[in-house]
């Protein structure tokens, strides 16, 4: 028996369709042999959930599913059950937990929410991966069993939010960031080195502590625009749940269910090549529904930025990598969702993204997004404007009254730098910094919608800290 077939024997994935998400998860685990197969008496269990920001469903993992899994673990005799995750950039777990009252909620279910970013309380172990230091909370490393519950929504870079991505947030968002690392003779943008490095880091972090039980919750899937609730988002009820013991296999079944060509999914292909998990259907024992008869028709995120149509906004794109694509995608969707009124006031703006973007059609309100766009447009003509020099309006009026014939004098012009440009630096830029810069550029009165959004985020994000960092 070769190595692969021994994995295959152990690789089981349950594809369950049910009337409620609770029933689906219970049925799935029971079909895989019951919770006792995964959690033993006295185990310390860590449940890794999506905990991105204090947004409503389906931004974070469905609480019904989490509470069902917690109660199964309790029944199995788990000694302690911890729940947690690192949230999105700049969001503190305590602020998020307070806004959603998660601590009391989990306490009620006899589990404990870990405030993983509180380093004073939770020590971190430094692990070196891909020439980078990752701080991983010891509380997670100490656990006997890891259960990963992941809400599946559409995603601009990976088609949908896979379980492997969920595992990535056992390290802080800061650690998740990809630093531009230019290699000699390699075109960073052409090869989309950003995505390659990201994938490499995701898989490396995944290998630190592989989950024992993996749940992809597709009972409801956010389609159209995601993974957050945007204007173009739609919640589709599929009634499906994919559960198994191998995250790669579970993701591979999930993608197939969503009718996605696996061979084009770099993350899974890389996982297969590195023998991190099983991707091929022939090597997975599928339990439950027939995958071929149940393919789902989901509307994925726009694959081109120009397809995110934002009122009065002209997108000029150059060469870009997945980093800027992802961030620009979110910025555009944010504009579309939160700036309904603002975009009418602004009348027109251009967004320049990527290396050597096309020239903007107008000279006002030019937002230059990302270091590549900023650096490659330094000497562009739109950066300068020509004005007539020293024309005195009073003098002009006097001349008109006197009906003096226009003297054929040479009109003097002056070239000054275009002040109606907003640079949004970063590789890729940070969305919240962009939000605060855009408000400053236009002024609060001009962007009431974005200003409201900014005020709402301020209730759980410390903007002063962000500003200080920027300086």
């Amino acid at each position, binding site marked *: 028996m070769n190595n692969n077939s021994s994995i295959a024997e152990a690789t089981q994935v349950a594809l369950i369709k049910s009337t409620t998400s*609770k029933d689906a998860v219970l049925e799935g685990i029971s079909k895989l042999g019951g919770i006792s197969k995964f959690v033993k008496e006295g185990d310390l269990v860590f449940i890794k959930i999506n905990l991105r920001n*204090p*947004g*409503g*469903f*389906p*931004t974070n993992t469905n*609480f*019904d599913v989490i*509470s069902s899994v917690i109660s199964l673990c309790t029944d199995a005799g788990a000694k302690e059950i911890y729940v947690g995750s690192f949230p999105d950039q700049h969001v503190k777990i305590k602020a998020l937990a*307070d*806004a*959603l*009252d998660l601590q*009391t*909620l989990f306490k*009620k279910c006899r589990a404990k929410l870990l405030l993983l970013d509180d380093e004073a309380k939770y020590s971190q172990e430094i692990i070196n991966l891909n020439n980078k230091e990752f701080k991983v909370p010891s509380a997670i490393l100490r656990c006997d069993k890891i259960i990963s519950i992941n809400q599946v929504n559409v995603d601009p870079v990976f088609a949908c939010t896979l379980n492997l991505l969920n595992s990535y947030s056992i390290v802080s968002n800061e650690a998740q960031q990809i630093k531009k690392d230019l290699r000699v003779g390699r075109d960073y943008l052409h090869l989309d080195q950003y995505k390659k490095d990201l994938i490499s880091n995701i898989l490396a972090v995944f290998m630190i502590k592989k989950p024992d039980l993996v749940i992809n919750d597709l009972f*409801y899937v*956010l389609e159209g625009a995601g993974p*957050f*609730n945007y*204007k173009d*988002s*739609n*919640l589709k*009820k599929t009634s499906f749940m994919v559960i198994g013991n191998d995250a790669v296999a579970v993701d591979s079944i999930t993608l197939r269910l969503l009718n996605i060509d696996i061979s084009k999914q770099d993350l899974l292909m890389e996982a297969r090549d590195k023998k991190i998990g099983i991707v091929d259907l022939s090597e997975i024992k599928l339990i439950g529904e027939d995958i071929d008869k149940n393919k789902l028709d989901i509307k994925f995120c726009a694959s081109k930025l120009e397809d995110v149509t934002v009122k009065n906004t002209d997108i000029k794109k150059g060469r870009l990598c997945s980093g800027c694509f992802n961030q620009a995608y979110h910025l555009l969707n944010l504009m579309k*969702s*939160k700036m*309904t*009124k603002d975009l*009418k*006031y602004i009348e027109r703006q251009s967004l320049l993204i990527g290396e050597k973007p096309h020239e903007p059609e107008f000279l006002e309100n030019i937002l230059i997004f990302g270091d590549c766009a900023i650096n490659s447009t330094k000497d562009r003509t739109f950066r300068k404007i020509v004005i007539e020099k020293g024309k005195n309006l009073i003098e002009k009026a006097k001349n008109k009254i006197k009906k003096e014939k226009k003297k054929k004098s040479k009109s003097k012009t002056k070239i000054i730098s275009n002040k109606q440009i907003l640079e949004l630096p970063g590789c890729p830029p940070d969305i919240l910094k962009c939000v605060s810069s855009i408000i400053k550029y236009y002024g*609060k*009165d001009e962007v*009431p*919608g974005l*200003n*409201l959004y900014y*005020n*709402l*985020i*301020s*209730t*759980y994000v410390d903007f002063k800290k962000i500003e200080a960092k920027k300086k």
Partner: protein
Amino acid sequence: MFDNNFKSNWKKILNYNNKINLVESPEEIREQVRIPLTPIHIEGYLLYYLFELLYPKFVNDQQNILDIILSDYDIENKVLGIYLYKTKKAGIHESIEELPKDLVIIKEKDITDMNQLFNMVQSHISDKKSVKISSIRIFTRRGIDLINTYCDNLEKYSIYEFLYRFLDLIQKLINENLIYLFPEPNVYRFLKDFFKILNNLKLSKLFRIIESFISSFATVLVFYSRKLNIITEINKRDSKLNESKISINLRTTKDLDLEVKQYLSNNSLLLVQKKLNSESVVNLSQDHLISFFLDLFDLEIPIKKENFKLILQKFIYGIRSFEIHWNLLPRPRIYNTLIRFLVRLLGININFKKLSHWAIPDMFFSLIDTYFGLNSNILLIIVNKNRIFTKTSLLLEIENSSLIKIIPIDNPEIIVKKKVDSLDSIRNSFLEKFGINPIIVKVDKNLIQMIISVLIFKIYKLKPLSLLKVLKMIKKEEYFQIHPILPPYQLIRKMGTISLLKLCLSILIDKHEF
């Protein structure tokens, strides 16, 4: 089969309608009739006009109607009676002809396919009576019994009593399939689906709750049109007893000897106000109201987010078009240019004529979607000074931003016995008992009353200070609370009242005056 009281009134209406076709100026025939199924008496001509106006728009715009009464038990032939109304004008019932009940045979299974049933009945009537009917109304015997019981002593009911009994009747008739209409009017389908959302919640209960939020008022609504102006006097006086005193009076301008020539003009409204000695007069266009309700009833239930946004836009546009499509006397102070100018100097821009109808629904849904989620359960608890005000709390089930169910929660174990100031414990009990983790919204009755009074019934007294007062109340936990403390609620609590008002107004009102 209908009770005598109902029948005699209905005959009176038919006679009146019949007479009206024979005279040149029908409004001269003065005869009081009762609006069917209500205790309200009005001039026959006004009822004629209402039928002529509303029936074709909301029920059926073709001639000739057939009423069929069906037995609840018979299987082979369920028909108990057939009545034909030959109508010259759609909706104007002027004669009734009882047809032999064996003219058509309807079996139990026929009712499952109304389209086929209609075609069959239509061809039978066409063959035998040479009349082409355009719609059928089917009443079951049980439905008729229910209507008869309802009609018993109807004229003795107070308006309050009539309203909640009427709502119960309609809900029961539709919910229990005691009447059928074919072709199915949108309003019928709308109500049928809406009652499904209401689950076991009685419409009358909802009415009682909403009615209790409205403090005393006396207003006159003038529904204007080129053909006939309808004047509706509505008074509500709170009483210490369970029910409040409501009176409704429907008349035409002619009944009051008023010549209202210029719609919307303040002088015309002043005349009405003086004549009826009312607190306020509101002038609304019949056409615009009808068009709004037609759009509303056209919506599929559960109402999809995008459709809901559109109808909200229309509604807000209606509010903003003050002195264009509607008018109000006394003229609200908030529209006074000088007051607005002075307030604007303080950085507060209040101009209801510039409500951002095009942006508000979008912004509202974006906020709800982001922080409440596309799926959510919202538990609405109404309190009165931190004590449960209504025995029933409402659980609103939202799926993909659409309200799909309203579940009445009458469980005293969970809500009444718990201290209402501890929303946390209510949520925990909810979780234990139903496995649902709701977002709890607690609102004090006084706050709702204040909002309704300030923004609707006493809007003519509205001052910027009243808005500040409302916001101040919202900021106080005893009047308004959301659990968990979601970011929008955190913002409300954190921000100063004036800054909050400015922030809200920047969203609600257009920046540019022109």
